[in-house]
């Protein structure tokens, strides 16, 4: 893990290691509905992150006593492939980190999906990280939102997620793995763009009040672009199939 003794320079000549400015996103590509058997699915390439998200259901809740009589339940699995990371994720199967990410992801979608339309049922969300380079939970949520929309399950909004943080005195957007490990603060956020409701906010490290508000407005500013990519992916899926 990161330690301050071998901390690399993250800012060289006013630019980040990959040449981005502080408020620049990595390139994002999304393909909607790549999987035939899922109700809805999405594949995202966010910089070097490669992630598949799939939604199955609504189906009968199992075991039966998990079912809620007035609404559907969401079950979420987040998993990193054993070959996804540089070194740390060599062991497959759920671990503390994966369980935590699955929980916060589930809570993002419990707040936007209209669960009361399918009482007694269960909706499964799978997020599989094939290749990771920092910010996988944000990329996973962004892809999962497209998968949910593609499944036709009613939802109030199409959320997106992005991480913001601080390198030294600079607030910066969308950390890569190396920045994530050595930066001074890291804050993934999920936002519903319709009225900028915050659906997820976690933070490592420290931010001052001014830095926090700058980080939030940076995330919301970048969100417009992310939302547009999500919407285009959904539209393209139908234009593609009509050819």
């Amino acid at each position, binding site marked *: 893990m990161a330690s301050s003794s071998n901390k690399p320079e993250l800012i060289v000549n006013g630019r980040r290691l990959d040449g981005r400015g502080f408020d620049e996103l990595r390139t994002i590509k999304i393909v909607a509905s790549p999987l035939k058997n899922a109700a809805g699915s999405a594949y995202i390439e966010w910089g070097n992150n490669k992630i598949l998200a799939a939604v199955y259901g609504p189906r009968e809740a199992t075991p039966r006593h998990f079912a809620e009589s007035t609404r559907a339940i969401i079950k979420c699995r987040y998993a990193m492939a054993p070959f996804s990371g540089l070194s740390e994720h060599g062991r497959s199967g759920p671990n503390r980190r994966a369980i935590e990410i699955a929980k916060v992801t589930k809570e993002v979608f419990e707040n936007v999906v209209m669960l009361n339309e399918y009482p007694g049922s269960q909706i499964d969300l799978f997020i599989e990280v094939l290749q990771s380079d920092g910010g996988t939970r944000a990329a996973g949520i962004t892809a999962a939102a497209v998968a949910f929309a*593609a499944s*036709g399950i009613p939802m109030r909004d199409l959320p997106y997620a992005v991480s913001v943080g601080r390198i030294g005195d600079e607030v910066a957007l969308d950390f890569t793995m190396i920045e994530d490990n050595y930066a001074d603060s890291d804050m993934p956020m999920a936002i519903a763009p319709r009225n900028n409701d915050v659906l997820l906010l976690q933070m490592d490290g420290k931010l001052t009040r001014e830095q926090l508000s700058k980080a939030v407005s940076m995330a919301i500013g970048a969100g417009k672009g992310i939302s547009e990519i999500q919407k285009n992916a959904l539209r393209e899926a139908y234009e593609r199939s009509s050819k």
Partner: protein
Amino acid sequence: MRIVIPGEVVAERPERMENTYIQEGRTYAKVLGMYDSNGRGIIPLEGAWMPRSDDTVVGIVSEVRNKVYVIDLSYFGRSLLIPGKYEEYSFSVGDVIEARIKEVENRPTIILSEAKPLSEGTVMSVKPRKVLRIIGKKNTMVNQIAGFTKTSIIVGLNGLIWLRGGDIGLASEAIRRVEREAHVSGLTETIRRYLEEKTGTKREMETG
């Protein structure tokens, strides 16, 4: 017609339309669908089947209990067939049936009636939202496919389709094509040409 995405504003004032919701005086889409600007609402492109009474369904008997059949409709709720006293047919596990929905109870449980056995044949499953397109206006699409391929077809609104006889391969291929291109206009015509072409070439091969 345009594609709308969940959370997209479809009207700046509150309007009651299918598959929308109203918040703070505006109307928003809640599903991915085609929006008809004449104000008739949003036609969803994907999604689960929402059962209504009187729907015709195709199902498979999955359990036989004392006087009650549990039917698999590939739906998240339960569906039961409770035969009356003078019922004509009796079923065993694995039988394919056609039935009508008598009522949808809460939880949700579907109660079926007027069950008829569908013997032999095969069952295929399609996306429930595409079923109306497969049936077509006044059954035009399904009649056309059945006519060209000489296959008996019964379409259940739950997304299961039963086929028997004729050129089942071509019939299911045509149905798959409708499923894939359901959002494209002029589809009945396209499918007619496709079927003409396929059955035409087949005849030539037989005579040649």
